[in-house]
């Protein structure tokens, strides 16, 4: 068969704003509705087809909540559920307020055509901010329903309640259904930010471990991931990225695609893609298309990263914490310690690589994406690709878990550019290598710590110096737009990186200084517990160093310096459940056969203002191979009010296991030109034989505000492992990942009598 391949070169001007602004038409565009599509998908599109006047202003109750004539309700959430259980938790909060059964409440999340803009989902803010906004809308609806019911029943609203879809007298007697009060009509009331919520003592739905409805769909292939979404007439696209970061495209040979059916090449300056009807044809075409690129050597190489960071150009220095002259206090200290800690670049490494579908037409564009910030993505796509924002709709479809800003937004831009260019809907599926090479990376972090003790063992000074990628205003740049030579912003942000660099323990003087780096070799972005993950690793490992130097048990050392009762409780409950015996570390005599055994503890309060988390671990270390095994984890977790304890536990377990993987295995490797850790062999993640037993103790505080729990429990993991390894071996690990080679090396150099531990940077 002859390939229908044509090398088409699109002049840049074809993509101009003027061209695309000609578009007219409705808000809802290119949305093909197929009755045969599975349930999850029709739910996602229902509002669009039935109610185009749906309000989106977050000040209005109806923007978040619609009560239907059939006695069901739909909640519209700007924040998205990326496998976290956010949807069930929001449904429970709404059910609590409006008195409908949870099963009758469906949640549509992240569809910019239906859901208010509540900001991106990240920093565990899904429930704290997004969910609480929705809960206040539901509570305002409750008050309105009670008022309407009072009118209808001729009784004071204070004598009424809402249960099972009825406004009823508290004293019993006939009620009126909320459907008859509002069904399918808008309430037209503003959200009262100070509305009274159903009191914790009266909670009947909040606090229940209800199963997540998506789980049964996921276990039976009914759930439609963005990777599963298809449109009629859709083409499969692949983008061919340069072999070196910053390389330019010199030439291509279209004839190299001979034999692959119905494939077209799209080239726009250095943007190179293929589209085909058949997905396998697109995969093959991307693999065999002959392209000649220039060389480029702009990166430092991962082996040089710590040095590169220490010597890097500084954007600015910032005092994060400063409670007194630490230099002076260190000079006066009886004992001082110092250490350097390093955390490498890591990848989000979603199990399913990034994917998006775009349908760009003359009258607007629809994009299906699992971006964690669909509203932001929509604005950015519109701006960069010259589309009228009101005519761009981004529909959220859950993808493979993303844990931050992974490649999903880039895949959406790829799909938009290809669809715009070829005039048909295009689905772009990144390969495994695309994902691990090109997702923006969790940033590397370098920390220097110093502490001083007085004769009584008090910490008189603590000094943290941290090197972090700076924040630049503006949207993050799309890979596709840069390659295609389309002007765009080059913002840089990776989350709140500088938090938790100070000890949570009583310390006389603390200074934390952030050195914000102008550039880092790999583009940084938010990756679960950004910043905190390395800061807590350093602070909690260093705390352990101080405790060991003082010859004090690590739990006792911490408890003596904690005064917050909630902090004390998580540490105490962890120690109890773990069966912690008081003694100082190390305890190198503990052996299991040829393995060394140890236990470690770590504690932190997330962002020094949110969740309290403590954990203890058992590990073994094989001195011959350097292999660490985490065998048991006990974690006590206090995030205030608990909405759904089972979904919460699932998140906490995930935080712990994923971070064991990050700690033991994960480092993005790159040379001068490219990322070279580009599959699961070169970027290994934890496998089942390494899975520890995990026990989570939830501390529910119904009278306290709820706090997001999607990432806090990641932060103490690395330190707890490192502290346990120290307990087992007397060797301090200060560089992640704790690979067998690194561990073996550290043990060997310790036994040679040099200072115990690996040197970072």
């Amino acid at each position, binding site marked *: 068969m002859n390939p229908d391949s044509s090398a088409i070169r699109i002049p840049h001007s074809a993509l101009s704003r003027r061209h695309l602004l000609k578009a007219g038409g409705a808000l809802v565009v290119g949305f093909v509705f197929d009755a045969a599509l*599975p349930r999850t998908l029709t739910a996602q599109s229902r509002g669009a087809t039935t109610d185009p006047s749906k309000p989106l202003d977050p000040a209005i109750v109806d923007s978040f909540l619609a009560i239907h004539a059939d006695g069901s309700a739909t909640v519209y959430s700007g924040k998205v559920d990326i*496998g*976290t259980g956010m949807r069930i938790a929001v449904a429970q909060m709404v059910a609590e307020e409006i008195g409908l059964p949870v099963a009758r409440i469906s949640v549509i999340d992240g569809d910019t055509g239906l859901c208010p803009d509540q900001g991106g989902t990240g920093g565990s803010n899904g429930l704290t901010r997004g969910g609480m906004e929705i809960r206040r809308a539901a509570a305002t609806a409750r008050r309105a329903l009670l008022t309407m019911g009072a009118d209808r029943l001729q009784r004071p609203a204070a004598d009424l309640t809402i249960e099972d879809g009825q406004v009823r007298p508290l004293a019993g007697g006939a009620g009126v259904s909320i459907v008859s009060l509002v069904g399918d009509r808008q309430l037209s009331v503003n959200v009262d930010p100070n509305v009274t919520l159903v009191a914790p003592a009266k909670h009947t739905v909040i606090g229940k471990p209800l*199963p*997540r409805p*998506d*789980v*049964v769909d*996921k*276990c*039976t*292939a*009914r*759930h439609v*991931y963005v*990777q*599963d979404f*298809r449109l009629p007439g859709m083409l499969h696209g692949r983008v061919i990225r340069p072999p070196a970061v910053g390389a330019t495209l010199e030439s291509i040979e279209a004839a190299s695609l001979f034999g692959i*059916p119905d494939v077209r090449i799209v080239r726009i300056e250095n943007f190179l893609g293929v589209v085909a009807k*058949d*997905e*396998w*044809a697109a*995969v*093959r075409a991307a693999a065999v298309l002959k392209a000649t690129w220039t060389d480029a050597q702009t990166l430092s190489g991962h082996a040089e990263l710590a040095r590169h960071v220490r010597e890097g150009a500084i954007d600015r220095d910032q005092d994060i914490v400063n409670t007194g002259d630490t230099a002076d206090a260190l000079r006066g200290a009886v004992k001082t310690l110092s250490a350097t800690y390093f955390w490498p670049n890591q990848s989000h*490494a*979603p*199990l*399913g*690589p990034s994917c998006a579908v775009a349908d760009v037409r003359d009258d607007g564009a629809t994009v299906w994406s699992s971006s964690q910030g669909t509203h932001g993505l929509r604005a950015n796509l519109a701006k960069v690709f010259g589309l009228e924002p009101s005519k761009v709709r981004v529909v959220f479809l*859950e*993808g*493979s*878990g993303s*844990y931050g800003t992974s490649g999903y937004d880039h895949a959406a831009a790829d799909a938009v550019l290809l669809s715009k260019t070829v005039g048909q809907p295009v689905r772009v599926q990144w*390969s*495994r290598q695309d994902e691990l090479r090109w997702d923006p990376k969790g940033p590397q972090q370098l920390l220097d710590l110093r502490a001083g003790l007085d004769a009584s063992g008090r910490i008189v000074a603590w000094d943290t110096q941290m090197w972090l990628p700076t924040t630049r205003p503006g949207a993050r740049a799309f890979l596709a737009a840069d390659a295609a030579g389309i002007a765009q912003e080059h913002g840089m942000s990776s989350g709140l990186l500088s938090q938790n660099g100070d000890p949570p323990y009583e310390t006389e003087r603390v200074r934390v200084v952030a050195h914000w780096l102008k550039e880092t070799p790999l583009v940084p972005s938010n990756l679960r517990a950004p910043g905190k993950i390395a800061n807590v690793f350093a602070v909690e490992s260093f705390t352990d160093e101080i405790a060991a130097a003082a010859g004090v048990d690590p739990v006792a050392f911490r408890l003596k310096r904690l005064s917050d009762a909630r902090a004390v409780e998580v540490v105490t409950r962890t120690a109890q459940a773990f069966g912690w015996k008081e003694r100082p570390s190390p305890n190198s005599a503990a052996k299991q056969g040829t393995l060394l055994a140890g236990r470690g503890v770590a504690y932190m309060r997330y962002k020094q203002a949110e969740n309290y988390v403590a954990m203890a671990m058992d590990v073994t270390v094989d001195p011959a191979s350097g292999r660490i095994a985490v065998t048991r984890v006990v974690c006590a977790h206090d995030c205030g009010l608990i909405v759904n304890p*089972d*979904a919460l536990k*699932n*998140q906490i*377990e*995930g*935080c*712990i*296991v*994923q*971070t*064991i*993987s990050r700690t033991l295995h994960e480092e993005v490797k790159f040379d001068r030109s490219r990322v070279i850790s580009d*599959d*699961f*062999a070169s970027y290994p*993640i*934890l*496998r*089942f*034989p390494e*899975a*520890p037993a995990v026990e989570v103790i939830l501390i529910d505080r119904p009278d306290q505000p709820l706090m997001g729990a999607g990432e806090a429990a990641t932060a103490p993991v690395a330190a707890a492992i490192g502290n346990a390894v120290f307990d087992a071996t007397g060797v301090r690990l200060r560089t992640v990942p704790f690979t067998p080679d690194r561990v073996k090396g550290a043990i060997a150099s310790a036994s040679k009598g040099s200072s115990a531990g690996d040197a970072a940077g």
Partner: protein
Amino acid sequence: MPTHGFRLNNRAVSVESWDANQPLLYVLRGALGLHGPKFGCGLGQCGACTVLVDGQATRSCTTPVSRAAGRAVTTLEGLGTPERPSRVQAAFVAEQAAQCGYCTSGMIMVTTALLARTPKPTLDQVKQGLAGNLCRCGTHTRILRAALRAAQM
């Protein structure tokens, strides 16, 4: 174009492919419109694409469609429905053994094959049985519980 005939979830199907080396995964997700088997790596490293071929857990991303000819292929869709789940599916639901759930199909397929071979596995046998399957969300503890629960059902 050559056609390849096999049984899929208990019915006979026949698909055309321009390339006899086309991985079964693309045929299942493309022409046959299934969602169970997932693309995770295309390299045989993650197990997300696992299906049963004549009852054996098989990575469909590295299995050419031609090799499925004449065989019986089962995907997650073929095991059960939300109303009538297989026991492994039911156990995964009971344990809420998914976060994003992208790995779940592969986990359920491998567990199904494992329990057919080893009806009462130990925890260690389950860990070894699932050693080739990756879960990025860290749902391991629940998946292990689900597999052991299924063995009791």
